[in-house]
């Protein structure tokens, strides 16, 4: 187990990443993030993604509140939130979240409330999917690190 775990975990990670890339959940920008991770910041990706989730959570909550309000009309604010979300999503390479956000944004630009509600739902769905996937990825990564750590002294 000690010896084989790393390779298997690495293969799992690769497979997961491949499938995420294949589905378009992630894009090459995520690789950029991974590149930026080095000895000086070994948990860079994890940190960034975590911050991303924190920020996005807030934004999504705010968006939901805004849209749930019956007398709501502040599409501009929605647009600003979405800009943030689009920007950070594209920065970490969360392509699908970014794309659905863009669609959501165009609905908000048209003051299309049903479109916005639907957009929000899709964004939330994509967001949660991404979060789950990332969670899985980081768990695998952690296990791999552990496994690698175990193996290293040998």
């Amino acid at each position, binding site marked *: 187990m000690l010896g084989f775990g790393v390779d298997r975990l690495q293969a799992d990670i690769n497979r997961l990443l491949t499938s995420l890339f294949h589905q378009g959940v992630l894009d*090459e920008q995520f690789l*950029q993030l991974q590149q*930026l991770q080095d000895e000086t910041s070994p948990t*860079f990706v994890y940190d*960034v993604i975590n911050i*991303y989730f924190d*920020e996005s959570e807030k934004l999504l909550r705010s968006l939901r509140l805004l849209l749930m309000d019956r007398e709501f009309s502040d599409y501009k604010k929605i647009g600003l939130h979405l800009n943030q979300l689009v920007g*950070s999503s*594209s*920065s970490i390479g969360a392509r699908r979240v970014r794309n659905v956000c863009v669609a959501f944004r165009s609905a908000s630009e048209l003051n299309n409330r049903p479109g916005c509600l639907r957009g929000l739902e899709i964004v939330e769905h994509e967001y949660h999917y991404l979060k789950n996937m990332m969670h899985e990825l980081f768990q695998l990564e952690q296990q791999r690190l552990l496994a690698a750590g175990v193996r290293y002294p040998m």
Partner: protein
Amino acid sequence: MVCEMETDQIEEMDVEVLSSMWPDDVGTQADNQFNVEKPAGDSDTLKEVDIAEKRTMADLKRLPELLNTTDQGSSQLTNLVRQWEYMQDHAVRLLREELKILTRQREEAEAKELKIIEEHNFETEEPESVPVLDETSHLFRRFRQKKRDELVDSKRVVIDEEFDTVAYWKQKALSLEKMLEASTERERRLIEKLNESLKTMESHSAPVEELTQNLKRAEGFLHFILQNAPIVMGHQDKDLRYLFIYNKFPSLREQDILGKTGVEIFHGGGVKESEDFKREVLEKGKASKREITFETELFGSKTFLIYVEPVYNKAREKIGINYMGMEVTDQVRKREKMAKLREDNAVRKAMESELTKTIHITEETMRAKQMLATMSHEIRSPLSGVVGMAEILSTTKLDKEQRQLLNVMISSGDLVLQLINDILDLSKVESGVMKLEATKFRPREVVKHVLQTAAASLKKDLTLEGNIADEVPILVVGDVLRIRQILTNLISNAIKFTHRGKVGIKLKVISEPSFASDKEQNETSVWICCDVYDTGIGIPENALPCLFKKYMQASADHARKYGGTGLGLAICKQLVELMGGQLTVTSQVNLGSTFTFILPYKVATSDDHSDDQDEFSDMVDHHQPEPDDTTEGYFQFKALLGSIYSNGGPVMGSNFLPHKAMLTSPIKLINGSVADPSNSSGQSQTVQVENGGYMDESESAHQYGNGNGHRCSYKESESCSSSQASSEMESELTVSSPREEEKTETEVKETSQPKILLVEDNKINIMVAKSMMKQLGYTMDIANNGVEAINAVKDTSYDLVLMDVCMPVMDGLKATRLIRSYEESGNWDAAIEAGVDIKTSESEQGCERSTDRLPIVAMTANTLAESSEECYANGMDSFISKPVTLQKLKECLQQYLQ
């Protein structure tokens, strides 16, 4: 006898009464009498006769017959009337004759009677004494009396007859008397009848009138119908001579037509045809219709629908034809128009379907192209990742072999990237997405830089030269990037196919070419002809036509030998044409080729440098434009063989970073300035050394391998410079020119750490960018919005600002505008006006600082042309599309931190 007569009369009366159908009790006796006295009965009989006569004369059956027999149909009515009158006259004459005959008969009869009486008298002379005489005289008297209608006498005769003396005479006298009586009676009747007839003749002028009216009505009807009908009717005899014509267009009189044939009357088109047609009908004996267009002097061009039928006489012999023509010119015209329209319609439909097909094909092609572009884009992104990573890898510590492998990797990646960029460019041009930008630039510099860049990667013993005619304006307006792209393409192409000799660019002003559309030309535009010539292998004539086609090379051999995609020239041509110019080529095998492109430019005024934003002028003479540099017309560069890896040579830029190579000023042969005397190696860094204040930047550039990627050589320094090294690897690039202040890379790094400001509101983006900067060896300050950015710029002198466009509080565009306004005016009034809280305490220092243009690079999520235009319009120098990658960031830093 009297009784007989009376009964006769009574019978007549009865008949009369019956015939009149009057009942007996109607009317008085006098009425009856009156009726009897009226010649009603006679008139009745006469009427019957009359009617019979009238029928025969005015028989309508005779009308067509008349029409057939009359020569002049138009005068039929007069003829009819004349005939009628004639016949009436005839009837009168006949009656008169009859009357005459009757009168003569009567006279004869009277004469006879007289003779008989005389005879009788003579015979009775003898027995005069006999009372018979009395009787005979009585008889005679009675006859006379009777003749005078004296009924009293006849009574007496009856009484006399009873007297029986001589049987023979008596018998004879009786029979004679009877004959006479009958004759008299007949005579009387006839006279009566004649009188009646004469009377009714007058009264029966009524039927004539009736008939005339009928005829008039018929004529009126016909006239009414035909009055405005465009109809010609006629009858022609066997020789096709007109016997009758009715013409709505009576341009000819009857006598001009009648008795003549059509050919004799008209001249012109259609006459012969109609004549032939009539003859044909006459021969065949079958009625038919035909449309004939006449082109006659008489009535111009008219089309008639002609109906012709043969006419037979009673013996079934053809005697002529009837023809009827209706003018249908308008209808024919309409019909022809319709036919034409229908034809047009059909043609249009065919064209439409053809077009649809073409559109379909085009759409397919476009889709394919789009797909190609998309795919290219999709490939480019990961590939740039690969190349970028390889580049990062090359910055780490590697052994020689690894480095070499990595170099191959990077250059291959670059090649593929270049190819993909080409494809993208091409599809952009083809789909019309590519937009040209108008910027001011100096053609001389462009040529110089292109040559410099080319020389940088030159591995052949070639001379590169540039020759610009004096009349070429110093500053023109055009899309400098595209023009540079064209020049670079052509030059690299020329170098590729040239093994010895030279490759050069020649610029000259020409007059407006013929293909130019004159509408867009004005006095400020100038046509510049650019020749890119070489002494290479040349192009065979048969390969010229497909030279500019995509993916085509002169031959398969060439493709193998020289590589390349064959896209370069196609892109060049499309770009040139997009800019309204023309690209042509002349070539001789083994002697060389010359590619010539002609482009229109607007002449810019060279005095306002503030607007001069193009990258070359920014880089070359951002601070103090070198006066000579702008006007010099000749450059020469030479490649240095064997310089790779050798020591002492200046840095050689790698070819995928073209802007790196633009720093060096070439040695000008014109002013004959040789190397700086103080510079023993004769190195061509003279200008840079002399050009103080420019030094630091160039040095800082070296650290990224932005060396002067070429040798600027001239004859005297050739041997020297040929020993200089160049390397394609950035990490090994060293500033090896024998300058006084030689520094190692690290030293440079330490002393001139550039100050960078990132303006960005998104935490994630900040994190990522910061990490990337760290990887590239920089640190940077962060501002979260435009206001913070302005304050930061005010307080610190930055070398580069990376500005997000979309931000809360104040967006990047506005912030940039305000910073630019500060640079121009030297104060922050505009910013204060815009509501930015300027901290005045520290601002003094900021105000004093030089107002050099601060490079501001936009970071935008949108890479579309509109967005880039917006960025430029707001004073930004460039833009990076989001998401920011290491590669993009690095290129940007290399471009601006020199």
